[in-house]
Structures are given as C-alpha cells and as structure tokens.
C-alpha cells in the first residue's frame, strides 16, 4: 500500500506527461478525465448548438425541460437510451453492429495525444500530429460501413458521398498541416511532429503560426479550417447526411443507442480537429502574448481570467434568475437556475485558489480556443447553405489543393530564405 502511494506521488514532481513518465496510474486517471470531460463537452455542445442556432433564427430553442432548457440534453439522452434498437431485417447485422463503434473509437482515440498543457496530455508521441490525422481518418471507415450495412438506398448514397468527400479533403488538410510542420523546423530546435513540440516551437519563435510569414500561415490555417469542416461532415459540407435529400444519410437506419454513438462521435471529432487547429496555428495552451506581457503582474492577471470567466457566467445566470416570471409555476425553475449560477460561481471561486489556478490556466486557454472553434461550427451551420456535390469536389480539388501546394512551396522558400539570412547575419557579425 505504501509503495503504491509512493508510486502515485512520484509522478507529481515530474515535468512530463503521464505517458512520457510511464506512470500507469496517472495515465489511467488522465484517460478517465479526458473521457468524462469530452462527454460533458458534448452534452454542453448539444444544448449550446440548439440554443445558439435558435437565437440566430430568432427562435427560443428548448425552454421546457429545466430553466432555459438546461436539462434538455439529459432528457434527450434518456430518450435515446430507452428507444428501441432496430436492426433492419435485410441489413448485414455484424457490420451494422460494428460500424458505430469504429466511429466512436476513432473519434476518442485521437485524444491520447491532444496537449491540454505542457504536461497535461495523456502522452506525447514522436508522431503526434500524424497519429491524430491517421486515426481520425479511420472514422470514414465507420461511416462507409454503416451506410453499406444498412442495405438501403439513402444510407448507401450517403456512404459513397462521405468516402469521396473525406478522402478528397484529407489531401488539402495534409498539405496545410505540412506547411505548419515546416514552420516548426525554423530556429535552433529542429522540426517535430509531436503535438507538445509544435506548441513549444511556437513559444520559442515567439509567434503563433497563424501569424508566421504573413499571410502564408493565415492561408494555411484557412485551408485547414475549411477542410476540417468537411472532414467532420458538418454544414455546409454535411452532404453524407443531407437531411433534405437523403433523410439522414448514412445513419438513416440507425436508432436509439447506436444513433447516439454517431452523435457522440461527430461532436468529439469536431473537438478533435479543432484541437489540431488550435495546436498547430493558435499556440495550443499558450495564453495571449506569453513573450511580451511577462512579469509576475501579467502572470497574475492572466491566471485570474479563468475564475473571472466562470464568475461572469454565474452573473449571467443570476441576471436571468431575476428576469424569470414571478409566477408560482416557475418557482422550481427559478430555484434551479439560481442553483446552477451558484454552482458556476463556486467553480469560479475554486479556480481562484493559488494551487488550482497555476495548474488549470493552460487547460483553460486551450479549452477557450477550442470553444471558439465550436462556436464557429454552429455559426457556419446557421449561415451557409449546403454545397452541391460537384461544387464540393470543385472546391476540394480545384481550389484548396492547388492553393495548398503553392503555399507549401512558398513556405519552404520563405523559410529557407529566413534560415540563410540568419546564417549570413551570423557570418557578418563574426
């Protein structure tokens, strides 16, 4: 028992990830934390998407279950779990059964290397970004097999569309990623594919890669931002499940628990690709201006922001509580909303504690950036009409791919010039 506690405590002094330190206990804890955190994030996204989309369309969205529909995701989850799980008689039962699990496995496995902070990752791999791209590309297999196994026309068309679409956009995505990886090789450190290494390269070079070699980094980021929406089958690229043409596309025949697995996988894949974008171009866990606004005062100011954010959310809750109708029927909802506000305020106050503050601050910045992308996803869905399939292919192959190739060459040329110029300077100063 004593040895076990020693084993647990021995990691706390380490400055590496649990996987890097080889500590099985903490690796398991991190895996559970990431899994629970992701599930909570998906639940929040479910509610937020319905609410934000509703407000964009001047509707109220869910209002009945809980105050402002806060308990709606839970009601949805219960409904989905209690629904009958139907396997069509003519379906290929085994493949039909496996397909959702392939999608979920692919969507969750990528989080093994996502760096929430310099030590807050399950593990750091030498091939980090390659691993993320590879494993997330496996999810298309799940979608294709789901569509085929349903043995029905709409799912099959959805599956065909999704395989063509995801393979096409993977190419452009890869080119954009390579251009960011080339930027890591500048300076003394040498290039790296490791997710933590990429963020550290941005810190060492003192610039987020989105602003590097302006506008090259920005264009690469733009290509990735378009391709990642197509990769996750979201509007305006949601042709595999285009509800106005294909009922629900590849998951038309799925119901209940299996359908909810597709739902879960879609949202966690969205979070995964947003994490890639944040890591590669937006400085990962780094707070804004980590190299210019330094010193203990700025450190303190920036480390207070997480707590202040939660207090602000709590304040919004209390404001809404005060605005609740003063009718006896609304009493429980009012109390519930106030309780939710108190919970948020408590979290905010906990985040002010010195020990918590220091450990949580990088996770907060990473999550905040990812949350920005999540909002963009909802915004796209509320704004853009869906592409036609030939337009989709045209954008992928005739616009994004040539732009990506040009960008790759330009980044290489500019990078080489910078390196050579640095060497010339060195010689001149000698």
């Amino acid at each position, binding site marked *: 028992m004593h040895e076990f506690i020693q084993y647990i405590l021995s990691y706390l002094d380490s400055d590496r990830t649990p996987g890097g330190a*080889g500590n099985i206990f903490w690796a398991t804890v991190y895996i559970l934390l990431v899994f629970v955190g992701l599930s909570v994030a998906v639940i929040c996204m479910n509610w937020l998407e319905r609410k934000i989309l509703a407000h964009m369309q001047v509707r109220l969205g869910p209002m009945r279950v809980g105050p402002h529909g806060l308990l709606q995701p839970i009601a949805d989850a219960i409904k989905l779990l209690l629904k009958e799980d139907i396997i069509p008689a003519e379906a*290929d039962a085994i*493949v039909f059964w*496996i397909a959702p699990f392939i999608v979920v496995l692919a969507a969750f496995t990528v989080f093994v290397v996502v760096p929430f902070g310099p030590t807050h990752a399950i593990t750091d*791999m*030498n*091939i980090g970004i*390659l*691993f993320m*791209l*590879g*494993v997330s*590309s*496996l999810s*298309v*297999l799940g979608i*294709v*097999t789901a*569509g*085929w196994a349903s043995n029905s026309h709409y799912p*099959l068309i959805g*599956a*065909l569309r999704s*395989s*063509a679409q*995801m*393979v096409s956009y*993977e190419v452009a995505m890869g080119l954009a990623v390579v251009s960011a990886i080339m930027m890591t090789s500048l300076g003394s450190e*040498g*290039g*790296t*594919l490791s997710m933590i290494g990429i963020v550290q390269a941005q810190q060492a070079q003192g610039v987020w890669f989105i602003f590097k070699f302006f506008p090259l980094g920005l264009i690469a980021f733009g290509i990735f931002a378009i391709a990642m929406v197509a990769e996750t089958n979201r509007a305006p690229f949601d042709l595999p499940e285009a509800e106005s043409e294909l009922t629900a596309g590849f998951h038309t025949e799925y119901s209940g628990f299996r359908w909810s697995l597709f739902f879960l996988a879609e949202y966690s894949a969205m979070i995964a690709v947003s994490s890639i974008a944040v890591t590669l171009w937006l400085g990962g866990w780094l707070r804004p201006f980590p190299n210019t606004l330094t010193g203990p005062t700025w450190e303190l100011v920036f480390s207070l922001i997480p707590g202040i954010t939660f207090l602000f959310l709590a304040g919004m809750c209390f404001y809404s509580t005060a605005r609740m109708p003063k009718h006896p029927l609304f009493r429980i909802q009012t109390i519930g909303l106030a309780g939710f506000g108190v919970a948020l305020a408590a979290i905010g106050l906990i985040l002010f504690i010195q020990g918590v503050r220091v450990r949580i601050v990088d996770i907060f910045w990473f999550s905040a950036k990812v949350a920005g992308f999540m909002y963009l996803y909802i915004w796209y869905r509320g704004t853009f009409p869906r592409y036609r399939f030939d337009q989709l292919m045209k954008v992928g192959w005739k616009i994004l791919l040539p732009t990506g190739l040009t960008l790759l060459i330009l980044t290489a040329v500019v990078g080489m010039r910078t390196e050579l110029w640095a060497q010339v300077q060195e010689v001149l100063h000698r």
Partner: protein
Amino acid sequence: MNPPVATPFFFYMLAAVMIIGGILVITRKNAVHSALALITTLLAQAGLYLMLYAPFVAGVQIILYAGGIMVLFLFVIMLISIERNLKERQFNKQWLIGIVAAAALGGLFITVYTTTTKGRVLFPEAGLSYGESDNTQRIASLLFDLHSGTYMFAFEIASLLLLVAIIGAVVMAKKRI
C-alpha cells in the same frame, strides 16, 4: 527510457489478429467483409511497427493503407452487387502450386530464423539502434540528408512511378484531354 510493457503478449496478440484477419480476407465470400478483415490486418501490422520502435512507419501505414487506400477499395466494392457474388461458387485451380509456394516461403522463414552460420547469428539482438523518440527525424535524414541520405534516389524514383500511374489513370479514363 522506460522498459517495454508486456511485449510478448502484445506481439502474439497482434500476430494472431493479423493471421486471423488474413485468413478471413481469403475465405469470406462477401467482398466487404474481406475488405474489413484486410483493414484489421493492416491496423495490427501498424501495431507491430510500433513495437519495432518505428512509430513513423506505423502512422504512415494507418494514414495510407487503412485510411486512404482501403476507403477507395470499399468505395468500389460497395458499388458491386454483393448478392450475385454470394451465390457464385468460388474456384481456384492453383491450390497445389499455392501450397508449394507457401510451404517454401515458410521453410525459408524457419531456416533463416534458426540458422547460425559459423557462430554468427543472422539477427543479432542489438541490431536496432533507432530510438522511438527521434524515429521521424532519423527517417528524414536517411531520405533527404545531403551526407547520410542513402535512399533519396530510390525514394524519388518510387514517387515518379506513382506519378506515371496517376497520369496513366487519367489518360485511360478521359476520352478528351
């Protein structure tokens, strides 16, 4: 560097998955099932590469084979009518030659693995010097480095071959170019 965890267990598990997957590929009548079994085999193979401290090769294996090529395979297979395939009798007239070839290959493997010529083992234990932590960088310098880039020519020739294949496909598919 941490000691590897449960290496024999993972090796035998991955090897078993590969062999079972490989057998399923050739015994399933349904082409989609065969393709899925092949994907399983390729993924297990990626796991074996990981065990050989070659994470870059494993990552490329997953991206190219499991994520890219097999998706295109499935794309084509899904368009074939499976029902007719199921009713057709599968035939193979080369089973005798196949058995001889397989036995010869297996015999070769076993002899190579067990042979020690004049006290020199064919597979020395410490032959592997590439660390897991800089595998990608090592491969890059083997391919592209000015001084140690032994395989640059072979690599470029192979990519040229792929380019020829792409152009050939376009020429065959398009009537007017």
